[in-house]
């Protein structure tokens, strides 16, 4: 398929009268120095180009998308309706707060809902994504320790953590200390006891873990970290499994970030936009970035917390994502939110049980996702997790996350989410069983999969080594 720059210039159709606008535009000299070689194409060519591109892509509206850890749930269209209301689309962030009552009320209401869901006392909606939320929370944690005359340098991160955890800690100026897993893939308690000390600023943890298992020792872990004077940080990436059922605040966490674009059904993938609000316990509220939305009587106002770490984003975060998340929370309500979490867990366990003979995962129940290991299949046939993933594309199913977490060999991480129907889960399982049967019979066939996509097997080494992110114009 051509890039839009590669089409021959096409003229607008003659039967459309020229615009009646007249007059000359004066362009200052500095604006004339660059010759812009923009594509000059008829509207119909442009429309068809983008329609063709959209057919080459795959989204959650096209088919099942069990991409573990990413929570690619279906995004209800009512969220889009809410986000397209003129009262939200036709306002400017520089307008005065008192003229933006509706938007202010929405941000305040969303903050209150997120506090209730997480068991926290204060919230900032500013961070633009999950990793940005992690960074913001770590800065808050650092400011808290410094306010007590301490400078703690270490952040503890389990070896099964999302890659963003050590990355955020490093960017925030901390030293990252790896905490090994025990044989149940939970935090190794004895190792944690050895590692938590007076230099520990915080432990970053996701619960359920990246293996989709609930961290049973969470109270013990919180006690060890708190005992050393460190704080507990909750990576909200996996909140979808427990949303409205248990609260990070009740598990002993002091700060949390949420991925509104995952858990609260704003569209994501392809680079954004996201939203990563941070919630904190009362003793950290003074350090939140500004502005936070407060309420004085009937009026909503922007406030600057006393010891604020400053601003972490222009204006108020990705507002359009906040609207979608609030619409989602209000449409599910107090009963729907825990029910959605329970359905996510039920769906994951249903799929896990259907495919466990061919795609073995940890025994017992999982939470919202599970990790299968294709190590045996690879040893017997040479067919890898990556090969299976490519074959799934031909079945119209987005592949699961593969080769993560690193603690499982030939990992395939399935997260079907609550929004898939039983029929879809049956289809995924049936397709996976068919693929497995082909792997046993004809492993060579996998070298050619996928067969139905515009590009079959990209050269992964070249793609990683020789990245070309621009087009020659």
């Amino acid at each position, binding site marked *: 398929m051509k890039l839009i720059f590669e089409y021959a210039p096409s003229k607008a159709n003659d039967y459309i009268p020229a615009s009646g606008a007249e007059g000359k535009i004066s362009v200052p000299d500095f604006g004339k120095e660059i010759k812009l070689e923009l594509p000059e194409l008829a509207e119909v060519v442009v429309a068809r180009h983008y329609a063709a591109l959209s057919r080459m892509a795959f989204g959650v509206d096209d088919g099942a998308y069990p991409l573990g850890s990413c929570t690619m749930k279906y995004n209800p269209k009512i969220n889009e309706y809410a986000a397209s209301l003129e009262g939200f689309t036709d306002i400017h962030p520089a307008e005065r707060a008192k003229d933006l009552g509706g938007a202010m009320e929405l941000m305040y209401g969303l903050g209150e809902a997120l506090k209730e869901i997480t068991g926290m006392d204060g919230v900032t909606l500013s961070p633009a994504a999950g990793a940005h939320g992690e960074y913001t929370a770590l800065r808050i944690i650092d400011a808290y320790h410094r306010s007590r005359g301490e400078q703690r340098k270490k952040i503890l991160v389990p070896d099964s953590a999302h890659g963003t955890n050590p990355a955020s800690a490093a960017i925030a100026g901390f030293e990252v200390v790896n905490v090994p897993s025990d044989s149940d893939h939970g935090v190794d308690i004895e190792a944690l006891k050895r590692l938590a000390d007076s230099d520990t600023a915080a432990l970053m943890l996701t619960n359920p873990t990246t293996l989709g298992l609930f961290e049973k020792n969470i109270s013990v872990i919180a006690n060890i970290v708190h005992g050393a004077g460190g704080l507990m940080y909750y990576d909200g990436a996996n909140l979808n499994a427990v949303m409205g059922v248990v609260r990070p605040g009740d598990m002993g966490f002091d700060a949390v970030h949420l991925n509104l674009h995952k858990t609260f059904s704003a569209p994501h993938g392809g680079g954004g936009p996201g939203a990563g609000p941070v919630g904190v316990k009362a003793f950290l509220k003074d350090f939140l970035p500004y502005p936070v939305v407060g309420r004085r009587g009937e009026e909503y106002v922007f406030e600057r917390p006393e010891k604020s770490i400053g601003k972490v984003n222009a204006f108020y975060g990705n507002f359009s994502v906040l609207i979608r998340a609030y619409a989602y929370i209000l449409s599910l309500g107090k009963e729907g939110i825990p029910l959605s979490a329970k359905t996510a867990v039920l769906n994951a366990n249903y799929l896990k049980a259907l495919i466990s003979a061919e795609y073995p995962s940890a025994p017992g129940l999982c939470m919202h996702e599970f990790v299968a290991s294709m190590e045996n299949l690879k040893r017997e046939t040479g067919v890898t997790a990556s090969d299976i993933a490519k074959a799934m594309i031909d079945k119209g199913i987005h592949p699961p996350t593969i*080769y993560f977490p690193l603690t499982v060999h030939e990992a395939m991480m399935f997260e079907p989410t609550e929004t898939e129907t039983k029929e879809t889960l049956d289809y995924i399982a049936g397709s996976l069983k068919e693929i497995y049967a082909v792997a046993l019979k004809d492993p060579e066939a996998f070298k050619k999969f996928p067969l139905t996509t515009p590009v079959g097997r990209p050269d*992964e080494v070249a793609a990683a080594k020789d990245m070309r992110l621009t087009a020659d114009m």
Partner: protein
Amino acid sequence: MAKFYSKTHEWALIDGNVAAIGISEYAAKELGDVVYVELPETGQTVAAGGELTEVESVKAASPIYSPVAGKIIEVNAALEDAPETLSSDPENTFICKIEMSAAPEGLMTEAEYLASLK
């Protein structure tokens, strides 16, 4: 010279008090095609079992642990332009050389290592 292996799939080729460090054939197979090797810094000290550096493959970025304790005295700069040699010839491609500060402990001979993979 004698070659020893760690549980985390690195090898150390020991010559006097200097150990050349690389990754095993098994590790290279598991990683898939290596596309980037972050070379450690000369002069840096490292503990046995401590993180030495990181390699990036088409699958993931993975830490490489040091099988021995000591000071890094040489790095294999050729890996900067040709990281793929770590995939194609892992048992003969060193990442760096370490001047050991202590006798290596808990390493396996090749036979022991190969047996541990079974």
